[in-house]
């Protein structure tokens, strides 16, 4: 029974339940609204909620758990001897799944009869070719054990889906019956419905926590997998980043240092651009600018924050890079041959810096505005000029908040992807020269996970270790920044 059909049936039952619930309540009150404890709609909602929520919850849980269970039982069928050289259990499992899916497709397209699909044997028919004919590509030739596993997989999945449909519908029906039985003019439908809604609200709020858990678990498990096949010391202290891809053989150098170096270097260039510009812009806007200037300049700067990063990336690659080469390149304005290609740490850093201006400026603007007017008055009253007041009274008072803003901008810079993917180049290097191509943690996550490597190879899994370090660094920066900013706000509240 397909998921869509189950959902549709449950939904229909809920609608029927709503109508019947309202009717039954009205009937029990002899059609007199005033005798009901709650408004009549609540009786209907009560039935609908009891039909929908438990059954759909079970459906979702079932859908998550069933593949795990099936996989466990199918995996048992693959003996260790079947695992080919250079392959692994999980690769085999992927093959099994692909064959099973392929058989499904073949049946759906009519290329194979249902019975044929569940009986095919490798000896008789070349399964790989038959699957290819319906557009499903299977990596290696299908072995007998893979095929058997795939058959089992299909059988289990089919039974599972069948039972799932029955169970979910039964639960829905039970909810339906129970709720209708409850319905009576004295039943406190509103209170029950409101409690139900509150639970739904809490569930929605918990999604944030679930997301964080999802991030943490997906990073941790895959990172552990990675470190099982690649030594941690070589990752954290390696100075060379030279992954070798499948087929070429040989061990890869997956040193983290050149990547974090590139990340930090580019971020620092970006901050060197963004912090002074953003801070001066914020100061001017909050202390000097007239209302009319402010009402124009502030949104214009904020537009910079709303532009998608892909636009900045393209701008770095196609406009700023060539421009810098025209200045620092071989035939450039300066006549120095310092830059060979458009993609460089400087290119990405400059563009990223511009992107960060509004982050620094709007946060700093808020923070500067939070400094009480009394401070300014005190300073002006002593005969200080506006700039003296800003430099010596307002900025020191706002310093913690501004530090927080800069940390947030730094975390943004470290996590930024598209600008560096397009603008910084692909070569990992530990160079000091800002006009040289460098690469970053984020850029390598993209290239390792979108490359053509086998999923379980260290060359691909390293992306999770990179993601983990990225997550930890940015999280630490954010937490520190948020604490600082919050402390600062409290000081003037």
């Amino acid at each position: 029974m397909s998921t869509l059909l189950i959902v549709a049936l449950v939904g229909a039952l809920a609608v029927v339940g709503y109508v019947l619930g309202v009717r039954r309540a009205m009937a029990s009150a002899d059609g007199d609204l005033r005798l009901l404890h709650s408004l009549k709609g609540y009786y209907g909602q009560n039935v609908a909620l009891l039909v929908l929520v438990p059954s759909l919850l079970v459906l979702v849980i079932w859908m998550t758990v069933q593949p795990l269970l099936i996989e466990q039982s199918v995996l048992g069928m693959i003996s260790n001897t079947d695992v080919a050289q250079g392959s692994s259990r999980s690769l085999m499992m992927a093959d099994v799944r692909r064959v099973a899916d392929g058989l499904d497709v073949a049946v759906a397209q009519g290329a194979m009869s249902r019975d044929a699909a569940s009986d095919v044997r490798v000896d008789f028919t070349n399964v790989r070719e038959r699957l290819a004919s319906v557009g499903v590509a299977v990596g290696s030739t299908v072995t007998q054990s893979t095929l058997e596993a795939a058959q089992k997989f299909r059988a289990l999945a089919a039974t599972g889906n069948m039972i799932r449909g029955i169970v979910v519908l039964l639960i829905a029906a039970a909810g339906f019956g129970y709720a209708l039985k409850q319905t009576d003019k004295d039943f406190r439908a509103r209170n029950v419905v409101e409690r139900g809604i509150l639970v739904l609200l809490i569930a929605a709020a918990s999604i944030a926590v679930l997301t964080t858990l999802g991030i943490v678990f997906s990073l941790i498990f895959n990172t552990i997998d990675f470190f099982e096949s690649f030594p941690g010391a070589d990752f954290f202290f390696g100075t060379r980043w030279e992954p070798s891809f499948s087929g070429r053989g040989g061990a890869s150098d997956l040193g983290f240092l050149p990547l974090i170096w590139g990340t930090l270097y580019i971020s620092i260039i970006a901050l060197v651009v963004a912090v002074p510009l953003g801070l001066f812009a914020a100061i001017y806007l909050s202390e000097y600018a007239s209302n009319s200037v402010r009402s124009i300049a502030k949104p214009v700067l904020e537009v910079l924050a709303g532009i998608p990063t892909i636009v900045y990336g393209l701008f770095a690659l196609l406009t700023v890079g060539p421009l810098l080469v025209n200045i620092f390149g071989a035939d450039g304005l300066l006549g120095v041959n310092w830059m060979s290609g458009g993609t460089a740490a400087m290119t990405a850093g400059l563009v990223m810096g511009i992107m960060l201006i509004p982050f620094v400026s709007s946060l700093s603007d808020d923070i500067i505005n939070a400094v009480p007017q009394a401070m300014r008055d005190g300073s002006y009253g002593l005969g200080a000029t506006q700039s003296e007041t800003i430099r010596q009274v307002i900025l020191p008072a706002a310093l913690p908040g501004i530090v927080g803003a800069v940390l947030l901008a730094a975390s943004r810079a470290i996590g930024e992807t598209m600008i560096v993917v397009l603008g910084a180049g692909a070569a990992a290097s530990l160079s000091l020269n800002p006009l040289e191509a460098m690469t970053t943690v984020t850029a390598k996550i993209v290239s390792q996970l979108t490359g053509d490597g086998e999923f379980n190879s260290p060359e691909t899994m390293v992306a999770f270790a990179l993601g983990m370090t990225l997550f930890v660094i940015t999280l630490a920066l954010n937490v520190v920044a948020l604490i600082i900013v919050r402390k600062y706000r409290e000081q003037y509240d």
Partner: protein
Amino acid sequence: MNDMRIVKRDVDMNDIKISAKGVQVYYGDTHAIKDVNVEIKDKTVTAFIGPSGCGKSTFLRCLNRMNDTIDICRVEGSIQIEGEDIYDKRVDPVQLRAKVGMVFQKPNPFPKSIYDNVAYGPRIHGLARTKADLDEIVEKSLRRGAIWNEVKDRLHAPGTGLSGGQQQRLCIARAVATEPEVLLMDEPCSALDPIATAQVEELIDELRENFSVVIVTHSMQQAARVSQKTAFFHLGNLVEYGETGQIFTNPQDPRTESYITGRIG
């Protein structure tokens, strides 16, 4: 200082320090100060009293052009300090404010050390050539602010850590550190408890020896205690201006009398 007594009337008949003629102040379309004429003497405490919203603070802030920081505020008429019109185009408000210091309603020490708070003015105006000069100015100002003994051991503690009364005396010390000639005080005691108020009032009386002090207060008792001359403002008008004793004992204008006896306010 005895609470309700009316201050001894030993007003030095010094020169006129500030003279305001036909001053009008507008906030946007609101006419906040209407044709005020007043002459403020040197080495005298002059009190501005009146119900809230009567314009006394606004007028005080005209005297060192603090109103410049408000965009919609417009001042007409002439205010002269020692014969020089402070609203003249050539006058730099920065220089003016070094000469006419100000203390505010709420104590507003900078989030810096006590020392740096006091040293701030001398530093920006370049009054000290050496560190020793600066130390001396700071000590002298803190003594004048009657707070030296309380803070001399913790000059580098943050000024925001002091109690309210101490903070306000610190702010007074900070204001006198630039050696102003006139000291404007905008309800300096309104955020203080009675004991701190008494200390600040005593201090104001001492400051009179060196400065011309103008104080805005909503408390008639305070005006009576600290000032020699009193001006009564009502709805933007200067209703009556004269010797403090005479204002309180024998007001000329019925409005002054109503205010003093508590019928309007």
